[in-house]
């Protein structure tokens, strides 16, 4: 097992973007408050606490209450950003997210920090690779999985502007700035980062830049792969998925279980409207211990693994 490789220069931890953005929002809007379960440092909110101690509610290590208190703060006219480790915020407080937030339909923003396999070495209790499946089933709850700092900032700002419940999945794995010719973020709209008509790769979160690298490798083989960033999982951009199906083959890539997440969501749309050969790339279930980088390589979720899966899929077109 290899240790985590140091992040290349210029790559980013999107938790920093979250905290900078929420501070900028809090400067402009006194209704913004943060709600944490002891998770001040891991949420990068030390500076927020320094600036607005009265606008940070720390309930202690209590995920059910961090969610319910957020619902109550919204009832009292606040715009709460609830920030906690994604693995506990979801699994431990799922009924509060369902009943107090989504079903009650309150103006609360949930920030699932260090999502996916960022805590690789700490084992499956600390992995959050089921959350997309759980959360995307909840009516009213907008679910966004941003891919880089620019998109994280856009997602946080859009979440604050939307009058309703939003969950933003924020990784701590370093990511580069993605190339964008025409940057524009809208909740519920996918972003086509690279065009191509031989097949489509649909990814989100930390997998998007890997999908782009895979597309470059495929281009060297003469294969034109479209790369789509499906950052909003709920509501899903079905039109872009159905357009992707016109390429005749779809690969999905997510830092999540292969069951019920982005791949499951895309498969539901394709199976209902326009079935095409498909590969769902992700994790098989509870994972062995290892660094995030090691886990991605071990399960072929690096650029080479994505390109190989695409080549295999093309043979089935």
């Amino acid at each position, binding site marked *: 097992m290899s240790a985590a490789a140091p992040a290349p220069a210029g790559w980013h931890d999107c938790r920093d973007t979250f905290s900078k953005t929420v501070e900028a929002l809090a400067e402009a809007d006194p209704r913004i*408050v943060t709600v944490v379960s002891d998770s001040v440092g891991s949420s990068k909110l030390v500076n927020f606490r320094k600036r607005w101690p*009265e*606008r940070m*509610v720390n*309930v*202690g290590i*209590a995920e*059910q*209450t961090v969610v*319910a*208190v*957020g*619902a*109550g*703060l*919204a*009832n*009292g*006219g*606040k715009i*709460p950003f609830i920030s906690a480790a994604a693995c506990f915020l979801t699994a431990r407080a799922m*009924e*509060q997210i369902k*009943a*107090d937030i989504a*079903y*009650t*339909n*309150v103006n609360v923003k949930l920030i699932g920090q260090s999502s996916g396999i960022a805590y690789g070495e700490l084992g499956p209790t600390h992995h959050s690779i089921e959350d997309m499946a759980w959360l995307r089933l909840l009516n009213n709850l907008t679910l966004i999985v941003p891919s880089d700092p620019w998109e994280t900032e856009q997602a946080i700002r859009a979440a604050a502007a939307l009058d309703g419940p939003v969950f933003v999945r924020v990784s701590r794995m370093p990511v580069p700035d993605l190339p964008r010719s025409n940057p524009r973020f809208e909740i519920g709209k996918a972003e086509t980062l690279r065009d191509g008509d031989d097949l489509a790769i649909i990814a989100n979160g930390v997998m998007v830049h890997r999908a782009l690298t895979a597309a470059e490798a495929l281009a060297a083989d003469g294969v034109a792969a479209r790369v789509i960033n499906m950052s909003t999982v709920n509501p899903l951009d079905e039109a872009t998925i159905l357009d992707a199906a016109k390429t005749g083959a779809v690969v999905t890539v997510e830092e999540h279980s292969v069951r019920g997440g982005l791949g499951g969501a895309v498969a539901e749309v394709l199976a209902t409207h326009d079935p095409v050969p498909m590969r769902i790339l992700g994790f098989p279930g509870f994972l062995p211990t290892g660094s995030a980088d090691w886990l991605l390589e071990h399960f072929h979720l690096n650029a080479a693994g994505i390109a190989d899966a695409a080549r295999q899929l093309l043979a089935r077109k």
Partner: protein
Amino acid sequence: MVYEAQLGHPGGDFSAADVLATLYFGVLRHDPANPAAAGRDRFVMSKGHCTGAFYAVLAAAGFFPEAELATYMQPLSKLNGHPNRNYLPGVETNTGPLGHGLPVATGIAIAGQIDNADYRTFVLTGDGELQEGSNWEAALTAGHRKLENLTLIIDRNRLQQGARTEETASLDPLDDKWRAFGWHVETVDGHDHRALYDLLSASPKGRGKPLCVIANTFKGKGVSFMHDNVAWHHGVPNKEQYEQAMRELA
């Protein structure tokens, strides 16, 4: 309502009815014409299954027409088995699963504390409901933050769905538990309107602690065959029982 719907939780409805009536007709500052007014007192019905009593009181207070009570739990009715604020004015948060009301009410009270607002937040839980651990997470937070604008009322009828609370997972000494979490505790006869009114309407200013009112009640209060009888947690009276109950309640 329960007889018409052939569904419901009449035992808990009757144990909570006097507390609800005291709140809505004496204590709470509310305006049914403007149910979302920012300065309103908040009431959170944590024991969300006892909608028989809750809806009857909301209707009598003017939040919706009393005639609508006849639709209780019927298809497409606003009067779900458990309250939904998106259908029904006057409901602050959707409840049903137990152990949700106090944590949400704690959040509302914190918002009031941050704003130095003068509205109060009340929450009614069942006693069996206190077996849910989420209540104790919230109790820690409310005690720590000295939320004097928060009042918890425990419908202490000593019965849960299948048995007495003290035989299931005992709660006594309940007052000591709340005191240990930093709350001010009062015990009262939960069917004595005057005593409830005096306790709940007193200004919390200067108390420096959240208030826990242990309201000693009887499940099925007011109906002889339901009184303190675990069989009436949920259950529907037959025609003879319904007529007898209506005579006794009149």
